[in-house]
């Protein structure tokens, strides 16, 4: 038995074990970490096809949903990861592949979010007569998902055409500024015509109906609460959209467009001298990244029921950029891993750590190693890892730059593709 076979056999067992743990202790949210860790490992190690795909499908279609129905925070966590993963994938095309440093990326997320929020809430009545709004979730939400893609992509082209004539630091500054322009517009377009409702934000945003999920589960003999059905719905929606984005990203990467992006990143002059139209290729990267971001914006607004300029700050753009850098610029798996790692760190790991320390403090735990003796009751109440999120984050980034500058999963140019081509089989 060769190594791939052994691994293919062990991998599903490990998957089962991690999911099993999550099922037994669904309230221990941190157990999602090994599940996702093993899921990622599956994309990196050599496995037979059946082993990889069946294990992944099991985790995503059965493992997490079953645990999520016990503890809906798991759904929440995964939805967050999924949204950020899509954003990271979009930014990865712009920054990682095409090498265009974009510091205003959250603007496209905002455009997607506001596209649905304005018309999926009573807000649009403020400037369109007739009281047609909010538009009902079915079928309009799905229509507006498509519309959000188009709007974000169009704005991407509009911003890109002037901005992408600049390079390097200049581009970074201009995109930073344009990103802020979008946020400030959202903040101030409440007069003279109230379009965005300014800093108060828009609420409530319509959600697509989930009766059909309840109907299906009823027929299966399960009784589901509506809020569980909603969580399950968004889980499914985010999963589908995220997988679609991964697929599209992969396909573009392995086409003349993806190659042109990387070529431009590697050497602009050489790329142009090989017949690659510079501005068009850059704008295409910008619009593609914007489109990914736009669709998730629409989903985000429906999931949150509430949209305000607060969600689209410079910090948001930088967080997404950090995901791309942490994961590995230009690598699809890297962007996914970066999104999962940063999201989990932000909303789960640091919080658990804070809770753990608090617990030790309150119970007056004494650490005694002989040479060192420490009573946790003396621990300052200021020491709360959740409050040091940004600092810990910065530290991780610095360490990454020193020890793994290419990211956790560095970009690899696909090798198997060529083999497949030689055999005359398209990949």
């Amino acid at each position, binding site marked *: 038995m060769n190594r791939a076979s052994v691994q293919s056999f062990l991998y599903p067992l490990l998957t089962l074990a991690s999911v099993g743990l999550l099922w037994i202790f669904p309230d221990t949210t941190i157990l999602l970490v090994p599940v996702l860790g093993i899921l990622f490992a599956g994309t990196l190690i050599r496995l037979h096809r059946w082993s990889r795909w069946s294990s992944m499908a099991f985790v995503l279609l059965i493992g997490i949903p079953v645990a999520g129905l016990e503890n809906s925070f798991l759904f929440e966590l995964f939805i967050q990861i999924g949204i950020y993963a899509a954003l990271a994938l979009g930014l990865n095309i712009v920054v990682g592949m095409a090498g265009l440093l974009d510091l205003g990326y959250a603007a496209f997320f905002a455009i997607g979010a506001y596209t649905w929020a304005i018309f999926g809430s009573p807000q649009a009545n403020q400037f369109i007569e007739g009281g047609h709004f909010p538009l009902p979730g079915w079928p309009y939400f799905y229509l507006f998902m498509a519309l959000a893609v188009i709007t974000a992509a169009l704005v991407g082209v509009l911003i890109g055409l002037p901005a992408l004539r600049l390079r390097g630091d200049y581009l970074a500054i201009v995109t930073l500024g344009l990103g802020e322009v979008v946020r400030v517009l959202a903040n101030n377009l409440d007069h003279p015509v109230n379009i965005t409702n300014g800093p108060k934000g828009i609420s409530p945003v319509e959600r697509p109906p989930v009766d059909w999920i309840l109907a299906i589960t009823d027929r299966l003999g399960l009784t589901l609460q509506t809020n569980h059905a909603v969580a399950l719905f968004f889980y499914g929606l985010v999963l589908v959209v995220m997988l679609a984005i991964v697929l599209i990203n992969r*396909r573009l990467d392995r086409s003349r467009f993806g190659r042109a992006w990387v070529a431009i990143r590697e050497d602009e002059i050489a790329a142009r001298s090989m017949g690659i139209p*510079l501005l068009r290729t850059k704008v295409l990267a910008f619009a593609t990244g914007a489109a990914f971001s736009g669709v998730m914006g629409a989903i985000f607004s429906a999931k949150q029921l509430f949209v305000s300029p607060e969600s689209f700050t410079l910090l948001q753009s930088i967080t997404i950029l950090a995901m791309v850098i942490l994961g590995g610029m230009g690598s699809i798996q890297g962007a996914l891993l970066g999104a999962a790692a940063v999201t989990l760190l932000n909303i789960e790991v640091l919080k658990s750590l804070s809770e753990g320390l608090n617990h030790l403090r309150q119970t007056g735990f004494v650490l005694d190693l002989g040479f060192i003796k420490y009573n946790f009751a003396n621990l300052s109440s200021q020491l709360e890892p959740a409050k040091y999120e940004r600092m810990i984050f910065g530290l991780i980034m610095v360490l990454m730059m020193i020890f793994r500058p290419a990211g956790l999963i560095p970009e690899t140019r696909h090798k198997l593709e060529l083999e497949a081509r030689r055999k005359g089989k398209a990949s």
Partner: protein
Amino acid sequence: MSLVIRDITKRFGGLVAVDGVNLEVQRGEIFSVIGPNGAGKTSLFNVLTGVYRPDCGTITWEGRRISRLAPESIARRGVARTFQNIRLFGAMTVFENVLVAQHSHASYSYLDAMFRTRRFHRQEHRIARKVMDLLDYFGFAEKAEELARNLPYGDQRRLEIARALALEPRLLLLDEPAAGMNPKETDVLRDFIRTIRDDFSLTILLIEHHMNMVMSLSDRVAVLDYGRKIAEGQPAEIRRNPAVIEAYLGASAIGAVTTDA
């Protein structure tokens, strides 16, 4: 006349890098541009390929004006080049480096790529096969999957030529292809350039410092000094031209060289 350069001038501030240069290159010719360091040879190449915009003058290629076009437009008209300081796409494989140059030879759209249509597969197959043939021709088939940056220096130089040929050019500009090569490698390269000229029916414009190579390879030679063309002709004429000797060795050397010859 295949390539006609008329009164091309390029200034950088007060420095005149290329000063009213006129050249005419015929189809199928190997035409060399030589001159001391800083004579404006590479600047002339950059003007030719659209990297720099000329301050005045025109360039016509196959009867159409190409001066003031963007580099990518000039590339699409069948003008390919290599660079003096190697400019490969380091993080891409050898195969991909050459494939990039086929960009404009595929016409499938963004949506074709996204939905993997038949058009996409057909064209990707076609260009991949062309690239594989080219890699075979260059003896790169075994190294196709290596990253360009990991290739030894000599291979990088040759990969640049392979990449330029993948553009399917009719005019090839080679900027010091023999830089850093020993005499033996230079001889191999010289024969190779002649071979590709014949196999790919190219017109070749060459910048080179290895005089043996220039003299034995070129059909005609032009000499630049301080941005100006000081001589043009067949290699034998250039070798005897006093202005050229002066430019290369300084005025005092003229007597010595001519008596020596």
